[in-house]
């Protein structure tokens, strides 16, 4: 699998719902240098499932992780997939970026297409407060069930109260 094939398939399926797409390459190796390729692009959440289905049709699909960031008014989610493992140098890293406004923090869940996405989606629920439509299990995973704050949000005043600033021996040092 090559990055240009992945990008072409995404472009065909999503047309203008795919923006800022690019292929980033990197040269690795010393004796026989080769390039490894990454596909990056921004999509709308309406076409997320379609995009993932397109990737899945291309070859074995693996979701590594969803990373996210609080941008103030909106939350940016980055879906990191890999397509086509199993052959030497044959895997393409695909990152799809999408933004969701805080007023309507809902994203379709990938679990129907890719059940392996559940762990990382549950993590985003607790850390960023995103809702996933259609996720089979939305309980907290890493944080205690009764913890309501979302640690990666910037608008969480209570979070600071939970953070322990000093341990006792440091205070003793200052004496």
């Amino acid at each position, binding site marked *: 699998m090559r990055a240009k094939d992945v990008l072409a398939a995404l472009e065909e399926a999503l047309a203008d719902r795919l923006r800022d797409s690019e292929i980033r390459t990197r040269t690795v190796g010393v004796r026989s240098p080769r390039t490894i390729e990454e596909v990056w692009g921004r999509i709308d959440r309406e076409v997320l499932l379609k995009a993932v289905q397109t990737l899945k049709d291309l070859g074995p699909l693996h979701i590594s992780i969803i990373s996210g960031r609080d941008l103030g008014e909106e939350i940016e989610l980055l879906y990191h997939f890999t397509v086509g493992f199993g052959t030497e140098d044959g895997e393409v890293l695909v990152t799809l970026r999408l933004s969701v406004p805080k007023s309507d923090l809902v994203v379709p869940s990938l679990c129907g297409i890719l059940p392996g996405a559940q762990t990382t989606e549950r993590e985003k629920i607790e850390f960023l407060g995103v809702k996933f439509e259609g996720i089979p299990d939305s309980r907290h995973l890493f*944080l*205690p069930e009764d913890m309501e*704050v979302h*640690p990666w949000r910037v608008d969480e005043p209570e*979070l600071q109260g*939970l*953070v*322990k*600033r000093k*341990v*006792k*021996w440091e205070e003793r040092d200052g004496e």
Partner: protein
Amino acid sequence: MKLSSFKRALWVFHVPTGSCNGCDIEIVAALTPRYDIERFGIRLVGTPRHADVLLVTGAVTRPMAERLRRIYEQTPDPKAVVVVGSCGSTSGVFYESYNIVGPVDEIIPVDVYVPGCPPRPEAIIDGVVKAVAKLEKLEAGEPA
């Protein structure tokens, strides 16, 4: 203190409270043939109710604090607590997080600190032996 003064075999319970595993594997390494802590009669047991010494590792996460306290209470007296590793002793690299309430000595009383990240198995054995000294004093009715 001489090793011949050991009065009895010492049973140890290991409690990880949010460690990175580095200390935990070194504790297990202390049991295996090269270090062989069992030749002193020291062995790991599966429940605190049988233990004389608690080996605590990790910076104590929020959900583990309560459990650590409970495990401490379940351990019969006289008992000694050994903290293995820098992050259990002082928080180490794990400071300023929403989920860390340690170090260990803010949750339960600690007798011996073994610094190092992780400490070598020899140091862990040394820490346990120091705890023995305390236990024997306690049993003899002396202040520890």
